[in-house]
């Protein structure tokens, strides 16, 4: 069949396992690429956190974006989570995990900030209790 090659590729891979045709050198190169990208992103994060060169309120957002990018680098180059058909199960599990993580963090921060906003300042509460 013409799709014989695809069939061969769609056998599942364990998370963390790598599907490469090349030898050890190519795999080490993959890890080196990941390491270089991770160092670059980490260095940028530490630089952005301490600099006066960028608009200050944008710094937390920039840091979070850099962190998510570095997590992506680690997932791809160290954990070998790819978009290939042999990784569908791993990616779906990851997507569900990310959904729960976003719900927990986003929901908590949102609700608590809202409550904080609606709460009377502490000194007024103290006065009412007298």
């Amino acid at each position, binding site marked *: 069949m013409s799709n014989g090659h695809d069939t061969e590729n769609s056998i599942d*891979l364990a998370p*963390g396992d790598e599907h490469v045709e090349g030898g*050890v050198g190519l795999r080490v190169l993959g*890890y080196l690429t990941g390491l270089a990208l991770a160092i670059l992103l*980490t260095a940028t994060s530490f630089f952005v956190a*301490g600099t006066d060169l960028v608009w200050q309120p944008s710094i937390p957002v920039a*840091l979070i974006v850099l962190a998510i990018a570095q997590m992506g680098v680690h997932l791809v180059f160290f954990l070998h989570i790819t978009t290939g058909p042999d990784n569908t199960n791993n990616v779906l599990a990851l997507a569900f995990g990310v959904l729960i993580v976003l719900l927990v963090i986003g929901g908590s921060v949102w609700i608590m900030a809202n409550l904080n906003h609606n709460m009377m300042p502490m000194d007024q509460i103290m006065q009412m209790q007298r």
Partner: protein
Amino acid sequence: MVDATIAYPHSDPHHLRGMEALGIAHSGPASKRIATGYGFWIFILSDMVMFSAFFATYAVLLGQTAGGPSGRELFDLRNVAIETAFLLASSFTCGLASIAADTRSTIWFQLGLAVTCVFGLGFLTIEGREFASLVARGAGPTRSAFLSAFFTLVGCHGLHVSAGILWLLTMMAQVFAKGFRPDILRRILCFALFWHALDIIWIAVFTVVYLIGSAA
């Protein structure tokens, strides 16, 4: 299968490859390595969900210092940078060790894991000294809600790293005593997943706790 395709050329107009997919489905259950790795992947994701609760707690309590010191006064970013470098380097050497395990090279495997262990211990030493100095300065976990959340989150990550180092030493001993048996190779796969996942969680820790925390 070929005959069916010729007889019904439009039986699969959207190229869903139903027959071939069936062929794969009938190739038997997934290998034990895939099942074990996938199960451990689910555990890691649930671990990340647990960490997300600690991160949410920290984010909510960031400003609740109860008149005590804030992150800006407490955190030493130079230490954090060294910790980050150690953990990143250990993640890299752990990757090299798993390549060595795949090529059944005992020397490189033991060397890779030994270097990973040294970096991990270096990370734990710096973190332990940071915690000790915070407590000595009167900024222990009982000082404020902010510091409780800080020690819970970062301490939980440190506990994971400690457990990872114990696991790492176990793997070195098992490969030394028993060689690269299939079950031991599966444990190495799970250990590598665990160690890389710890580094991913550390990215969130140094960003949210230290960099954003010291800016707030």
